[in-house]
């Protein structure tokens, strides 16, 4: 008989104070982070009110809020946001659809990696916005060129991360799969794919930022619509508040996306530890 009795998974006794402490700590960290932002905004507002900064060239929080309200009532800003959002989402989706299989294909074998890595590095280090004049010539001002720029911005982080995931396949897991008779396809589906999830999520998260950068850059560069255009146009006509409203809008959107990605990452990656 087995001499050691394996204990049933016990439900450990949890110090009731522990959860309360954890909750409080979380609350404090939110209050602290929010507090710093509120403080900065207050100083800014105060400086404007006391005349330390020139409202001709800058703005202050209260004016931005008012401008936000006005722009919202007009509805014009939403039209621009919708146009930007559409290109962003479409470009990001195409990037994922192309980047994931391409990254797998390039990283799966030593020779495809050697063949394509230099090309990919060359692309990946070129600032994509530098291509914008060419893209406008090729795809026209507006939707086409913007979409291509978003795609070129977002596809490489996804591709490179998937490539890295395939190249860094854990030798231990590869050996297990082989020892139990896995075919290349099974090695891919049962080991490489699950092991690549963290890489994929990192890639998608980086790509999200790049895509946002790409779309705004493209719209600032040229065109007659979109949030980027609105920023550029408002800046030239000294509508400083509108510029700020757009920036806040983009920042909020970016943070929301990034946070939801983090939450998603924790969910799918729970076996890696810490999040049971």
């Amino acid at each position, binding site marked *: 008989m087995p001499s*050691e009795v394996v204990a049933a998974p016990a439900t450990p006794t949890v110090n009731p104070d522990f959860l309360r402490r954890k909750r409080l700590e979380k609350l404090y960290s939110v209050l602290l982070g929010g507090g710093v932002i509120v403080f900065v905004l207050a100083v800014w507002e105060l400086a404007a009110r006391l005349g330390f900064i020139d409202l001709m060239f800058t703005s202050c929080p209260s004016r931005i809020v008012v401008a936000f309200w006005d722009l919202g009532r007009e509805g014009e800003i939403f039209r621009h946001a919708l146009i930007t959002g559409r290109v962003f989402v479409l470009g990001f989706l195409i990037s994922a659809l192309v980047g994931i299989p391409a990254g797998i294909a390039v990283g799966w074998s030593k020779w495809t990696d050697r063949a394509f890595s230099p090309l990919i590095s060359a692309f990946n280090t070129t600032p994509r916005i530098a291509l914008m004049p060419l893209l406008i010539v090729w795809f026209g001002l507006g939707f086409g060129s913007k979409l291509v720029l978003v795609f070129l911005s977002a596809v490489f982080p996804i591709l490179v991360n998937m490539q890295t995931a395939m190249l860094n396949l854990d030798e231990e*897991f590869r050996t297990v799969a082989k020892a139990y008779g896995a075919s290349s396809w099974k090695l891919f589906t049962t080991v490489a794919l699950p092991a690549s999830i963290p890489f994929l999520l990192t890639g998608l998260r980086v790509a999200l930022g790049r895509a946002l950068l790409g779309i705004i850059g493209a719209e600032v560069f040229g065109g007659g619509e979109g949030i980027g255009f609105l920023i550029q146009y408002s800046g030239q006509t000294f509508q400083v508040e509108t510029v700020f409203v757009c920036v806040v809008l983009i920042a909020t959107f970016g943070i929301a996306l990034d946070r939801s990605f983090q939450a998603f990452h924790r969910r799918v990656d729970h076996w890696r530890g810490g999040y049971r």
Partner: protein
Amino acid sequence: MLTLQEPLATNPQIRHHEAVPALSARGFGVTYEDQRNGALTEAVRNVDLDILPGEFVSIVGLSGCGKSTFLSSVAGLTPYQTGTLHIAGKPVHGPGPDRAVVFQKASLLPWRTVLENVYYGLELRGVSKKEREERAWEALELVGLKDFAHFHPRALSGGMQQRTNLARAFASDPEILLMDEPFAALDAITRETLQNELLDIWQRTRKTVLLVTHQIDEAVLLSDRVVVFTERPARIRRQFKVELRRPRTEAAKIDPGFAHLVEKIWAEVNRIGHVEEEYAI
């Protein structure tokens, strides 16, 4: 010295009269290339070994003698260059589902639960979900881990991970189980516990096992036959039949025959031109 025609009365389960050994190596030799500098190492030379169905055979030898390479090559993970290898009568070169390996490291897939890890081999063979779950549960029962079936490996202790590793191999139901120093990475107490458990599991299931170990008492306790390898390149120096009565328990260790055999094997293992420092007692 043991000849294979000799009846092994101590393990009545060994099916001597079945024509086909579970494993049969003839003139088996392995030379491998160092991945970094291309240096060639002849690890195994001209090994003839038969393992009968239901037999538990251990290989012992000095550290670095090539016994692990031999096992890896039998598993199909390291190619062999000379001789032949048959598993249940079929010539084999690469890895296959007719063999299952228990690694020194538990090597569990961390994104799979214990249950999913245990049926991994069956899944690769295309066994239906219902059947592979059934068989995985049986294997978990054997190693006493039913309550942990839905845990992820990182929530388990080293000993429990190694039990899962064992369960995975047993569940796969291969022609032969290959174990590569399966308990070497565990602490002394867990190691002994698992040795006893393996003894118990094996006596209940009577699978064919080839175990590589550097622990001679482990080899004697578990095996029907202990094969001593020479220093590198590994050849078979001598084989010992273990005549301790089955079913055995840990208590077999206090049998005077046990100590005597361990001593004899020790002498044989060390009857070698150069004795490596770490192995001198």
